[in-house]
């Protein structure tokens, strides 16, 4: 745990290597032709192409949002490669044996071995390399319970009815500039379907890796949890060190039907850029879940340490009566990183509850903004929300902002928001140092304590996973 925070604050990016694989890429730029090219490459049914084209036609009329508290030069959308796949021996690898050795080694290096015998028991992984899914582990074992866990491309081929039913049902293609762009060009991602009454026996995870230069990554994840089912899902992300910025505009949609629970955890560790703010990923992501049925629950946990810019608001639409939405977040911005992140909790059903715990840490020139909306609709009787946002500042060049929006349209609502901003307490530091602990370790101990409420929500199986991704160990090994 000590090392974890130390690594969070002051670390070199360890995942910045490049894998040498031949890529099969589309030419730079975006047009209807490119979209047709992507759709054809993926051998998609007509409804998919039509959906993409609708999104594209909408997108060209849209303007990028400007309200967020982040600054970056305009993005040249024609300078991006919208499709890049590692060139494979055949169209798709049928088994791990057919996955390019270079790629397998990449995942080994990242601490995500794909060979099942090496895997942690109880974790299934879908590995997405640039634009495509290269491997999904434990597929057959999951299939025994009727669970579908595969790449999005495969889902389109094998379960088009499910895809057609739920795609865009939570994040419509016209939702916002980046989500619409994603809808037009998304190349792959993970798909997950948990049938009625099934408790997914293992953690599911997707590991995203940007490798090629000049590419954007536009994955799309769709998770559907049928009545009374349960799934816990984790995504991790890394990218090579490059001195140009790369765009990552993903969309995640979650649908929880009656009595279903989806727990979605993210350890986002995209390349943040160097100390002077050169390079790094622009992480512009739309994540939203819908508690469609009564007594359903969606819980987001995110640990955001990477990316030059993070712009994301994992949200929950609390439609079903008695549904529950949760958002636990740690966002760290160091050097020149900027983050504008938070959540939206939209209370529609009766007796809905939401909890928001956000911990922001800004160091050096980092800028960290919490932005969150709690909206209680007129018919949402007895809605409850509790929000707590704390920010820690380290150094006099950083910035922390807290921008909650609370809109209450029903009198029976109880909404509470509390926030604080401060630097690390000198008294705490002195106390720890008096016990012989070095100042650096004292700082990291305090930061870990500060983030504990969020860290404890990471699934146990992924505590190990997360620590590998962060190159660190979690508290809990002792005591």
């Amino acid at each position: 745990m000590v090392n974890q925070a130390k690594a969070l604050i002051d670390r070199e990016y360890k995942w910045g290597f490049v894998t040498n694989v031949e890529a099969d890429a589309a030419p730079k730029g975006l047009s209807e032709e490119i979209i047709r090219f992507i759709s054809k490459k993926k051998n998609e049914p007509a409804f998919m192409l039509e959906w993409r084209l609708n999104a594209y036609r909408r997108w060209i009329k849209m303007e990028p949002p400007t309200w967020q508290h982040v600054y970056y030069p305009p993005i040249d959308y024609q300078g991006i490669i919208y499709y890049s796949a590692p060139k494979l021996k055949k169209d798709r690898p049928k088994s791990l044996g057919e996955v390019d050795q270079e790629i397998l080694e990449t995942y080994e290096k990242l601490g995500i071995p794909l060979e099942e015998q090496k895997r942690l028991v109880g974790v299934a992984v879908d590995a997405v390399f640039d634009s495509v899914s290269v491997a999904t582990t434990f597929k057959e074992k999951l299939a025994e319970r009727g669970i579908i866990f595969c790449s999005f491309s495969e889902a389109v081929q094998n379960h088009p009815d499910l895809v057609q039913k739920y795609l865009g049902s939570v994040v419509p293609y016209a939702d916002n500039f980046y989500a619409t762009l994603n809808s037009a060009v998304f190349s792959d991602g993970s798909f997950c379907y948990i049938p009625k009454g099934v408790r997914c026996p293992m953690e599911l995870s997707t590991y995203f890796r940007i490798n090629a230069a000049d590419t954007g990554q536009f994955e799309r994840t769709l998770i559907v949890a049928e009545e009374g089912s349960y799934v816990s899902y984790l995504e991790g992300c890394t990218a090579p060190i490059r001195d140009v910025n790369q765009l990552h505009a993903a969309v995640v949609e979650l649908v929880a039907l009656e009595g279903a629970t989806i727990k979605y955890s993210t350890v986002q560790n995209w390349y943040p850029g160097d100390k002077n703010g050169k390079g790094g990923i622009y992480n512009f992501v739309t994540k939203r879940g819908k508690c469609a049925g009564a007594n359903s629950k969606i819980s987001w946990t995110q640990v955001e340490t990477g990316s030059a810019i993070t712009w994301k608001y994992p949200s929950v639409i609390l439609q079903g009566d008695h549904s529950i939405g949760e958002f636990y977040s740690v966002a760290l911005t160091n050097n020149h990183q900027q983050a504008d992140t938070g959540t939206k909790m939209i209370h529609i059903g009766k007796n809905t509850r939401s909890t928001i715990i956000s911990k922001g840490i800004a160091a050096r020139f980092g800028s960290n903004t919490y932005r969150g909306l709690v909206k209680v609709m007129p018919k949402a009787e007895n809605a409850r929300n509790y929000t707590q946002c704390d920010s820690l500042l380290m150094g006099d060049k950083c910035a922390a902002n807290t921008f909650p929006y609370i809109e209450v349209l029903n009198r029976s609502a109880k909404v509470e928001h509390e926030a604080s901003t401060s630097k690390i307490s000198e008294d705490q530091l002195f106390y720890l140092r008096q016990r012989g602990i070095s100042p650096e370790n004292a700082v990291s101990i305090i930061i870990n304590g500060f983030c504990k409420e969020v860290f404890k929500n990471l699934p146990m199986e992924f505590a190990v996973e997360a620590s590998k991704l962060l190159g660190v160990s979690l508290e809990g090994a002792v005591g």
Partner: protein
Amino acid sequence: MNLMLEIKNLHVSIEGKQILKGIDLKISAGEVHAIMGPNGSGKSTLTQVLAGNEKYEVTKGEVIYQGKNLLELSPEVRAREGVFLAFQYPVEIPGVSNAYFLKAALNEIRSAKGLEEMDAVEFLELLKEKMKLVEMDSSFTNRPVNEGFSGGEKKRNEILQMAVLEPTLGVLDETDSGLDIDALKIVAQGVNRLRRKDRSFLVVTHYQRLLNYIIPDFVHVLVGGRMVRSGGKDLAFQLEEKGYDWVKVEPEVSEEHVK
């Protein structure tokens, strides 16, 4: 006797205000010294300066600890050299478990001494044993450092830390304040079990009460930033009987006579 700590003509100020106005004190190995004094006399200041709190400015004088210039060392180095301060007001550190914190501290001190780091299992055994010393129940290990602790629990926790870290010089800052008689006995017993030939204590207190349980070798009286009296343990009883005015008035009177 082996001299452990020597304070010479120590002057200390905080935010421009002079608190200590020339303190001299010698502590040899194995001795227990008590410093008594009224509120605001500078007792806590002295303990904070010994621990290295940077809020306080040493304007004059020196402190030699085991032959080293203590004032040059950072707080953590002092701790690793064996200086332990039981704080009057221990801070709360949210989210960090007591056990984790203590293990981190112990291992830093051990590695400074060239000892191997202790693993979790060994450490928990050690901790369990030490906890008996201060009669703490096992739930303390997982609770965040001092968070939600009662006043008495915080003080016992300080003594527990001292027992685990095994310092050479234990400085206790009003460890008795806010304790009922039972808790006081437990704390005193914890300290007494730690008394050794090569370990010294500096016990700061307002009341003589604690000194019934931790019997000092020497008692010093600090008033207005100066040591106005030193003596044996009987001095504490005299103080208790006559109050601080007794020592306060006398030096002033004698100064008058000099004029």
